[in-house]
């Protein structure tokens, strides 16, 4: 319980500095990750969800979009493992079908946010001066914006559809990434090896791509895992206000917001709709947390 020094120092002290240094960053991180059973379970679950997302369409026992009005809101049975929804569609099949959409939204939206965020953050952090001021103000303006209005505006300009939900969420959430990357680039910019590279005559572009971005990589990976659940949750909000994926397609958020009306009469519908979403979000959060600890202790203060 009592810590004498922090761990790195401690290992150095007891002659175990080699433990910290002898392996590569990722190998080392993987080794540390393996030590956390929670992270492994989470990773396994994410793997399972990804599997569902890819092979889901071949696994659904029923057509997820085809309903039979004769069997509306039925409890779980041998034919309908998770019961049926308000239009008599198979909840189990819809949950699986929704996996692809929800996960896709999470990953693609976050990738978009990351791309924009990393570019903007790097530019702001690296060049500083008026460019930094401009981007920082932009970030500030965007963060003080009503989320819904902004989301609407993007959706309006782009029109409805899954792809545009990706883009909307991506455009909404890049500011956080940019802020983090900006800070890190500013720190790295003055680091010795960047100085050395500069002294060796490297041009700015190669410094950015050879030194800064690779060094932000672990931050980027962590942000990706930590923000995917956020994007999945955002989709729930979009569905709640009736701007989700195009009907009759299912997404977790859509099922969750539609099922809540039937919570008393068909509780299983709501529970099963939310279950996979919650578990996935939980898995991503757990995994992201462990990954951050393993990869980049500096990110702790995020």
């Amino acid at each position, binding site marked *: *319980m*009592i*810590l*004498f*020094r922090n761990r790195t120092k*401690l290992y*150095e*002290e*007891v*002659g*175990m*500095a080699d433990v910290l240094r002898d392996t590569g960053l990722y190998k080392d991180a993987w080794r540390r990750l393996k*030590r956390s059973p929670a992270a492994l379970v989470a990773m396994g679950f994410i793997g399972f969800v990804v599997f569902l997302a890819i092979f889901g369409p071949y696994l659904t026992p029923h057509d997820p979009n085809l309903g039979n009005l004769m069997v509306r809101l039925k409890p779980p049975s041998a034919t309908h493992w998770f019961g049926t929804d308000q239009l008599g569609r198979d909840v189990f099949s819809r949950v699986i079908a929704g996996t692809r959409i929800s996960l896709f939204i999470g990953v693609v939206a976050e990738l978009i946010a990351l791309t924009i965020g990393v570019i903007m953050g790097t530019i702001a952090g690296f060049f500083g001066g008026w460019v930094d001021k401009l981007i920082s103000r932009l970030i500030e303006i965007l963060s003080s914006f009503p989320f819904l209005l902004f989301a609407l505006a993007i959706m309006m300009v782009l029109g409805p559809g899954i792809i545009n939900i990706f883009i909307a969420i991506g455009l909404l959430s890049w500011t956080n990434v940019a802020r983090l990357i900006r800070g890190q680039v500013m720190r790295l910019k003055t680091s010795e090896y960047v100085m050395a590279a500069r002294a060796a005559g490297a041009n700015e572009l190669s410094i950015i791509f050879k030194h800064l971005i690779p060094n932000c990589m672990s931050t980027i990976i962590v942000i990706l895992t930590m923000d995917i659940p956020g994007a999945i949750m955002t989709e729930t909000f979009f569905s709640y206000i009736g701007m989700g994926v195009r009907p009759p397609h299912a997404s977790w958020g859509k099922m969750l917001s539609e099922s809540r009306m039937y919570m008393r009469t068909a509780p299983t519908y709501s529970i099963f709709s939310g279950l996979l979403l919650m578990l996935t979000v939980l898995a991503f959060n757990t995994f992201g947390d462990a990954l951050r600890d393993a990869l980049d202790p500096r990110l702790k203060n995020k």
Partner: protein
Amino acid sequence: MHENTLLEVNNLRTHFFLEKGVLKAIDGISFRVAKGETLALVGESGCGKSLTAASIMGLVPSPGKVVDGEILLNGEDLLQKTQKEMRQVRGSRITMIFQEPMTALNPVFTIGWQIMEPLRYHRKDLTKAEAKERAIELLDLLRIPLPRQRFHEYPHQLSGGMRQRVLIAMALACDPDLLICDEPTTALDVTVQAQILDLLLEIKEKLGTSIIMITHDLGVVREIADRVAIMYAGKIVEENSTHEVFNQPRHPYTEALLNSVPRIVQGERQEELYQIPGMVPNLLKTHQGCLFAPRCDYAKELCFGVTPEEHLVLGGLVACRRYSEEVDLRELN
């Protein structure tokens, strides 16, 4: 036990229980510190000297544990004390100052507050005003200019040397019997180092506090220590008076250490600085024989097989086969 012995460490073993195995960071060390004496604990980084300090303070970090031995302060075994009793000892009877004066002070409290802190826990008889007076007195003692003003300042407003003085003041607040200095001058400029050492010497004179000086800087040792204990890989390999150690190093490791210090003699340039060959042994592995043997110029086959015992030599102890009775002393040279 001698009348004037303040601290006696007997066969102390502190091990770290890691997933990979048990790391024997301190493996059976014994030494004594007399009242008013300064003992230097010398060794390379990783030899366990800071951990010895931590063991004495009862602050061994978590995978580590003191597994055996005695730490007797005025005859009381500190290892038998509860956490609560240990807390009464820390900061009042044994205090400690650290290597990094820049980080050892809490940046968000005034230095006055931090100096008064040990008084708050150990000298409950003092009023706040008295404690403040005491703190200012201490600042003054450590030759900090304008102590009344400094009292209200924050660590970041002071220079490194000043901060180290503050740390010393803090350590002296409750008139401790033993002051452990963990490389107190390593992080400081050379000129400041000298000032701090002078201060420590002066304090020792004035207050008669015993000091354990943990350092790898032999220059510091020479200047301040009465006795020296050389540590290597969790063991004390040689212990003797400063004079003896410097003039007549007995252990090959001590010898090597001394040789690796550049000596500037006028008109003469040392051709090459001596380097100890090889690596510090991995303490996770079980070793047989003398741990220094692989790096020792004098090593014989025997050294790799049998753990050397401690041998009494003039004024001290040395743990090297070469001093065993069976060995012909002539072999030494």
